[in-house]
């Protein structure tokens, strides 16, 4: 309502949304609480290392789920799909490839290379299955216009059936060592530091190139120290994490994988048309359609992406359990959805961030981990996790009051 039109203001360094502050505060409180209650076992490098590794599988799913929920849809099938892909991966490794590969590559028979090739092929097959599942559900949702809730509810049942069919009701073992490394491995100390250094360099380069570009268009630049402080803070956080993890056994491979996925997905959300359209569809589908956006295609691609991320989660799950099990992935969809909502994704669509969902996922993993370190009875664990979810959404609703 002021006088003339003003240029876009830059967000200040300290302009965090109240929700982000609440989330981080909640996490700190939970960590400190568990720290005191467990005589600081909870905060030991060993436990933190486990905690971060435990959060990865749900986090892969939450990354995709943010996109799905942002468009105002839901995917209830991700747990079953993850389990289904894990079962396929395990049976390839335990049953199909050990017979098949020595015939295909007779020269390698008996060498450790067979295991590596088996793992690579397993990953390729798993990813393809994930994409196919995404295409199957996505095309029904986007092109046949069946509500996502119903399609994925059906999918949840179908792929749970798929798990039973593939495993024949048995636990499938053994898994190749290279497969286990994906979920259970650690980077050597120096390699972790090299990755951190590389990431820090990228952060600084991007900060400066953005400034240069802003200057080129004649935009007002933020004070140099602010940008510098931001980049420095991010880099230091990274090194801090690596150093703590190195005290135990080093950076966990699945965490490195998750970091890559988070960066890619955040980039998709913020800096590509694909992401921009997803948010617009969630905000107002009619206006988005009239703006020339192919909504059907966008929705289809989002479910394909979700399928691919189920495959990533399924691969890591297989390596983590070192087996394919009947119950694999059960209820993962609920944790993934809860992570998104806890992390500030609006259940109505239109807003939400990947980083927020990761924070949500970390809170959920912390609750589970902390309570099991404390040996809390499982029935209490469920009750507490459910209660925290409701409380978080209530807080969000309460702080949003007054806006209309």
């Amino acid at each position: 309502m002021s006088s003339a039109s003003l240029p876009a203001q830059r967000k200040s360094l300290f302009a965090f949304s109240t929700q982000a502050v609440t989330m981080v505060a909640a996490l700190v409180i939970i960590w400190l609480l568990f720290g005191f209650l467990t005589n600081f076992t909870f905060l030991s490098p060993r436990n933190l290392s486990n905690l971060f590794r435990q959060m990865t599988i749900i986090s892969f799913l939450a990354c995709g789920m943010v996109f799905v929920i942002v468009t105002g849809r839901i995917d209830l099938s991700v747990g079953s799909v993850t389990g289904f892909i894990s079962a396929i991966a395990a049976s390839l490794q335990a049953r199909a490839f050990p017979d098949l590969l020595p015939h295909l590559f007779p020269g390698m028979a008996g060498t450790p290379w067979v295991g590596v090739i088996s793992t690579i092929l397993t990953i390729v097959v798993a990813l393809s299955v994930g994409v196919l599942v995404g295409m199957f559900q996505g095309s029904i949702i986007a092109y046949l216009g069946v509500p996502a809730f119903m399609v994925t509810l059906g999918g949840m049942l179908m792929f749970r059936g798929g798990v039973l069919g593939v495993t024949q009701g048995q636990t499938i073992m053994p898994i190749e060592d290279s497969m286990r490394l994906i979920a259970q491995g650690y980077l050597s100390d120096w390699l972790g530091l090299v990755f951190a250094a590389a990431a820090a360099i990228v952060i600084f380069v991007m900060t400066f190139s953005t400034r240069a570009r802003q200057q080129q268009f004649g935009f007002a630049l933020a004070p140099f120290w602010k940008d510098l402080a931001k980049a420095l803070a991010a880099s230091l956080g990274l090194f801090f994490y690596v150093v703590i993890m190195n005290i135990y056994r080093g950076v966990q491979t699945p965490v490195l994988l998750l970091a890559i996925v988070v960066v890619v997905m955040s980039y998709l959300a913020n800096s590509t048309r694909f992401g921009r359209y997803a948010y617009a569809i969630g905000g107002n589908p009619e206006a988005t359609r009239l703006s020339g956006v192919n909504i059907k295609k966008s929705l289809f691609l989002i479910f394909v992406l979700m399928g691919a991320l189920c495959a990533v989660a399924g691969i890591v799950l297989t390596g983590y359990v070192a087996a394919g099990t009947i119950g694999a992935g059960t209820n993962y969809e609920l944790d993934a959805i809860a992570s998104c909502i806890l992390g500030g994704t609006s259940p109505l669509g239109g807003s939400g961030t990947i980083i927020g969902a990761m924070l949500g996922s970390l809170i959920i993993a912390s609750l589970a981990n902390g309570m099991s370190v404390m040996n809390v009875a499982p029935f209490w664990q469920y009750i507490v996790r459910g209660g925290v979810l409701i409380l978080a959404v209530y807080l969000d609703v309460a702080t949003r009051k007054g806006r209309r």
Partner: protein
Amino acid sequence: METDVILDISHVTKTFPGVTALSDVSLQIRRGEIHGLCGENGAGKSTLVKILSGVYPHGTYEGAITFQGKELRFEQKSIRAAIEAGIAIVYQELTLIPKMTVGENIFLGKEPVERRRINRSRLYAQSRDILTRYGLDILPQARVMDLGVGKQQMAEIAKALSEDAKLLILDEPTSALTQTEVLKLMEILRGLKAQGVTCIYISHKLEEFFGITDRVTVLRDGKLISTMETRDASTEKLVKLMVGREMTDRFPPSQRTPTDVILSVRGLHAEDPNVPGREILKGVDFDLRKGEILGIAGLMGSGRTELVTTIFGEYAAITAGSILLEGQEVHIKSAREAMDLGISLVPEDRKQLGLVLIQSVLKNVALPNLNKFSSFMRIDKQAELHETEKYAKSLSIKTPSLNVAVDNLSGGNQQKVVIAKWLMSAPKVLILDDPTRGIDVGAKFEIYKLMNELAGQGMAIIMISSELEEVIGMSDRIVVMCEGRSNGVLARSEATQERVMTLATGITSNGTR
């Protein structure tokens, strides 16, 4: 008329953080009068209504309000209290439940109950009493969704009056009505007045005041500028008071010479996509020239909006006829195709169809234009900001920052955001569907100026409007639609309100000059 005051607003001031919405407003409403209230968006009309309805409870504002001799002290956000006190409000946006009948809506929350069941026959009998008492011509058993906007408005009024209201506040009741419906509403209001109901009538359409109001009050920037007898007022006078400056003409002067035909529509027939077999366009013909503003007039339901959305490829299936763009026949099947051919549509309902309200000005403007500054994998955000800033400046969109959600902007500025969004796509043909609906005089004038400027640069513009004066004031030529047909084309020089209305109501011109 003696001065029996029913509502006494005395020195009311209402402030929000950083903004004074009402400052020291004193106004007395006489019993039985129809009191007009006008002012630009942000002048404080809505704030005043919200105080009277209890949305802003007692204590959140300064000053006193006395209604029928008692000071109003509404607690909390209780709209019931206002209704019980005898104040009823009909809002701009209708609040009826579409799937229920008129009677059910009127008695929503206060259904006549007998032995724990709703007594339907009594509900409809009482509804009929209310409807006939106020001369409202609708069936209580009709479902709201089956009624036209005009009749829905009547149901809304009946609902408001059903609790024996002494004061009826109408907040821009005509913004969605056609000319005939407006006339009908005026008639109803006169009837209410005869029954002793006092009315506060808020509107942007100043002409309406002269037909029915006794007095008119002008608000500007939260201050009461003047209250006068309607007979002493004139449109020019009101506009001057509202904007606080001399406005020589409601429509800016323009000089341009349309050149070649760019878009031709020939014998266009189309079917309702939802009801196969039902024709909604039954023969439309017109030519659009470069540098021309072509007005499309017609009553609500005449197929105006359906026509332009069909041209834009987003509505009906074309069954016969053709659309030629620069001499070549085109078959547009989606908004994307239309845009790629250089046709842009500023849709009718900016909130439902034009904007993603929760997103920023920047993202809204960029949405259809992302291909301009992005490759497959990357949006160049600096270029996006640079380009958007340019359009925000040239349309003087008033916003604290381009990162503000459009939800927070005023109606006029929201409309400018929609226009900016479509101008950035650099269209050859710009279609504006009722671009000035519900926005204030100042913003309207700016949009008119912009249209003239664009046409002057050679852009071809189609403008749909519900306001006859606007179509006649702005267009070079006017296509009049009637029941899905183009019923005639009038040049600016031969267009009068009567002739447009005659064509719009389907009377073939005999008897007129």
